[in-house]
């Protein structure tokens, strides 16, 4: 019982940490109207909580937490693989390094299972947000490649994820959905509470 709970806890904490980090990065790039985590917690607060939640996730289940975070990092950087990051490395190279670290630390099956989770979540998110991202001019796998390609790729990674670790896949997708849903509720609540101008 405890291993299952700790794994679920690790996935939830890591989902929250990644969401906070993503909001911070989006805010930095001026891609959102600062209604995300940064508006609720402040930039420093969001960074501190992201780190704290990441540590809690690692304490609950190190393998899942570390591989999921590395996979999220790798997938997140794939939006624009040629973009130079502050490390002076192209984003694609950082992605590759993140996957390699996961493989070296926990083996290819675990790293691939986590990568499958993250690719499926990102692809589903891009498929759902495709029209909004198109209007906002934001990079999105669907606008970059095509709907059918992303849908088929999702199915392929879904089979890989189910085949390697179906529990991790189910927990990650549920966790991501819960966190996304919660964030949308918080954001809607704040927008609703704002006095009309």
């Amino acid at each position, binding site marked *: 019982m405890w291993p299952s709970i700790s794994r679920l806890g690790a996935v939830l904490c890591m989902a929250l940490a990644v969401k906070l980090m993503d909001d911070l990065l989006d805010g930095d790039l001026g891609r959102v109207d600062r209604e995300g985590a940064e508006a609720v917690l402040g930039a420093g607060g969001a960074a501190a909580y992201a780190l704290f939640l990441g540590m809690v996730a690692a304490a609950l289940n190190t393998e899942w937490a570390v591989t999921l975070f590395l996979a999220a990092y790798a997938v997140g950087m794939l939006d624009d693989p040629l973009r130079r990051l502050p490390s002076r490395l192209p984003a694609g190279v950082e992605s590759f390094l993140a996957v390699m670290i996961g493989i070296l630390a926990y083996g290819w099956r675990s790293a691939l299972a986590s990568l499958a989770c993250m690719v499926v979540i990102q692809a589903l998110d891009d498929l759902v947000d495709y029209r909004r991202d198109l209007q906002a001019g934001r990079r999105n796998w669907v606008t970059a*490649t095509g709907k*059918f*390609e992303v849908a*088929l790729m999702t199915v*392929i990674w879904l*089979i*890989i994820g189910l085949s*390697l670790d179906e529990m991790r896949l189910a927990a990650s997708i549920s966790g991501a959905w819960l966190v996304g849903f919660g964030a949308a509720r918080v954001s809607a609540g704040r927008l609703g509470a704002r006095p009309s101008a």
Partner: protein
Amino acid sequence: MTRLSDDLVALWAPERLGRSWKEGECSILLQLLAILFLIGILLGYVVGRRFGKKEGFRLGFSYAPLELRRLSLLEGQCRLCGRQNDDPSSFDSDLQVCYDQTKLAAIDRPE
């Protein structure tokens, strides 16, 4: 049914080692085949779409002047500049001049 290989099970799903054929190699083979099959479809679609787009543009650019001329002649008015068919003896050559000026064939084709 003979067992294929324990190595395959050990590689992809070690937790299934020692299980029956149906729960071991067979299901793993099915999964791997499904993945390979879908990857094949994906690659075929991506490559086909890329080539298809290029070919579509090439065919479209060679077809467009003919279709524009046909419609212009049918309607008695140039589809590009709106010139009326006042003089039937020179209308066709006027259309040719109009198309040449638009340099339809020289428009950069998207990759």
